[in-house]
């Protein structure tokens, strides 16, 4: 190869290079084929993976479906249990019917036996079958149809009121007592200075506020007693007066607690009145309760027609608080005005109650007379108004 020159190839060299080139080309082709093959394999794998993923998804849904089925079965088991409970109730029902029918049959038998020995004397021959038919088709006394359980219903209503107003807790109830207590504290400290010369001013104030609080609270809740339970009135027929009467239970409870406190204060002061005046004091409370009850009967139906009556009543109570001798003694008012003030019922009640509880004497009939008249007037007018308008109560709600 010494003859070699740059740029020149011998034929052998050319042949070798060509062979080499061909070999390389073939190699490249092989590699290309490999690449194609691998790509195809990769695609297949990818497809396989996709398929597997799909399978997984399918299995997951199947699993969820099974879970739902299990839940459904659980639900139907619960349903069946309930149905069983219902059925057992039905069985009791039917047993009652059977019982009633059996009793009827026995009665019928007795009636027939009683009738047959003397057919010509007491029962006409055609009388027995007719009677029997009548007995057979007589109404079956289902569930024995008891009258309303008045006490039970009243207790439930009172309990409801207590729960709603005081959230059913003693704490809630104590909070409700806080308002009158605060009022007593403030008024006692402010006005006892003003009326320093008046004997027993503080005790009289205590009696006054306790009774006034009941009058105000009782007349307010009594007025709204039907309105507040409108949803019950529209649903079923029951004596609506239960609503009016039971609405006074929570104010009455407050009155009882404060009366206890008042008696404790009197006892501590060594001024507990004897049995006579004490009875007179409770008599005054009873009179107040009757007046409030009469007012409640009257206003509970009137407020259904005149919906703003409760706002009007709030104004009346505001003025009435000062019209009644709660914070001032009646003796501070000119003699000529006193009989007029006595026309406002709380005034009469307050004076009577104070004479008994603080004055420790049984008041003379001259004070009891007007009180009794007010009680009768309030109850009479209240109940009359109520009876006239209560049957249409549902139509005004």
């Amino acid at each position, binding site marked *: 190869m010494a003859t070699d020159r740059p740029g020149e190839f011998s034929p052998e060299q050319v042949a070798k290079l060509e062979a080499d080139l061909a070999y390389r080309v073939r190699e490249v082709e092989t590699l290309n084929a490999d690449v194609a093959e691998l790509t195809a394999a990769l695609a297949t794998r990818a497809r396989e993976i996709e398929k597997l993923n799909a399978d997984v998804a399918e299995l997951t849904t199947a699993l969820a479906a099974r879970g739902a089925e299990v839940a459904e079965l659980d639900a139907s088991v619960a349903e069946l249990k*309930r149905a069983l409970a219902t059925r057992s109730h039905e069985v009791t029902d039917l047993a009652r019917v059977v019982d009633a029918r059996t009793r009827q049959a026995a009665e019928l038998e007795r009636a027939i036996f009683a009738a047959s020995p003397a057919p010509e004397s007491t029962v006409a021959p055609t009388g027995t079958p007719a009677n029997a038919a009548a007995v057979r*088709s007589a109404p079956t006394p289902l*569930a024995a149809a008891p009258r309303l359980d008045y006490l039970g219903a009243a207790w*439930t209503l009172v309990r409801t009121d207590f729960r709603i107003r005081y959230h059913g807790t003693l704490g809630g109830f104590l909070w409700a007592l806080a308002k009158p207590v605060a009022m007593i504290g403030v008024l006692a400290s402010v006005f006892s200075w003003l009326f320093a010369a008046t004997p027993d001013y503080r005790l009289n104030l205590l009696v006054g506020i306790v009774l006034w609080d009941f009058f105000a609270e009782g007349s307010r809740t009594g007025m709204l007693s039907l309105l507040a339970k409108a949803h019950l009135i529209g649903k*079923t027929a029951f004596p609506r007066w239960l609503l009016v009467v039971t609405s006074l239970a929570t104010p009455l409870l407050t009155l009882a607690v404060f009366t206890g406190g008042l008696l404790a204060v009197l006892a501590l002061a060594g001024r507990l009145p004897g049995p006579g005046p004490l009875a007179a004091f409770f008599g005054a409370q009873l009179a107040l309760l009757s007046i409030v009850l009469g007012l409640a009967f009257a206003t509970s139906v009137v407020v259904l027609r005149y919906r703003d009556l409760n706002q009007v009543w709030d104004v009346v109570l505001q003025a009435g608080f000062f019209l009644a001798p709660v914070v001032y003694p009646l003796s501070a008012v000119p003699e000529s005005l006193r009989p007029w003030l006595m026309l406002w019922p709380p005034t009469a009640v307050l004076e009577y109650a104070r004479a008994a509880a603080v004055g420790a004497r049984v008041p003379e009939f001259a004070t009891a007379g007007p009180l009794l008249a007010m009680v009768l007037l309030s109850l009479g007018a209240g109940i009359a108004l109520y009876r006239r308008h209560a049957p249409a109560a549902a139509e005004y709600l």
Partner: protein
Amino acid sequence: MTEPAIAVDAVSKAFPLPEARMRTVREAVLHPWRSGAPSRLQVLDAISFEVGRGETLGIMGRNGSGKSTLLKLLAGIYRPDSGRIAVGGPVTPILELGVGWSQDLDAVDNILLLGTLMGLPLAEAQAAIPEILAFASLERFARVPLKHYSSGMAVRLAYSVAFRAARDILLLDEVFAVGDVGFRSRCEERFRSLRRSGRTMIVVSHDPRTIRDFCDRALVIDAGRIQREGDPAGVVERYLELVAQAPQAAGASA
């Protein structure tokens, strides 16, 4: 034939239209001369029918046709303006069920309240609490105040109480229109068993199936009068005619 369980004789009822009525003390004081000669809406106009003992009567009618007013008259909640209603036994009305709970009280307290007022003795109402809750499937929500209930739950509870308190005569307003399938079938079961035990029932419904499947007899009310009375299939037909006639006139609620 003994006397019927319910006899309605020429009963009429009208309501004063609310806007014509003096509603406040303020108005009464300011306009004492403006006497309320209110325009009145005649809801029922001399209606008469009877229901025999143990019979189930269906009542159909468009919205505002007076069906619910009729039920309230029968229940003694309203009084008729004229005419006479004789009811031969204690009545349990099942009406206005979606509304009317003491919202702040829980299911147990509400059951006691409604149950006793519907005539269950307190002791019996107390004993029936689990059963009533089970029937409504509301055991888990026994101590939840009603204000947190869904409307469906509240209705279910009401049915359960009323079905438990059921006495001789039952008045049912749209009885099978509520609740899920399970509850509805339980209601239907209970209804059938009450019917079997000889109770007298009046069923108000818009649903032709309810009237056809559950009633012995039916009547359709429109414009305050009975338009047709007799076998349920014929009554349903008449009702569908009425609905087709004036679909746009269905304004007031039932």
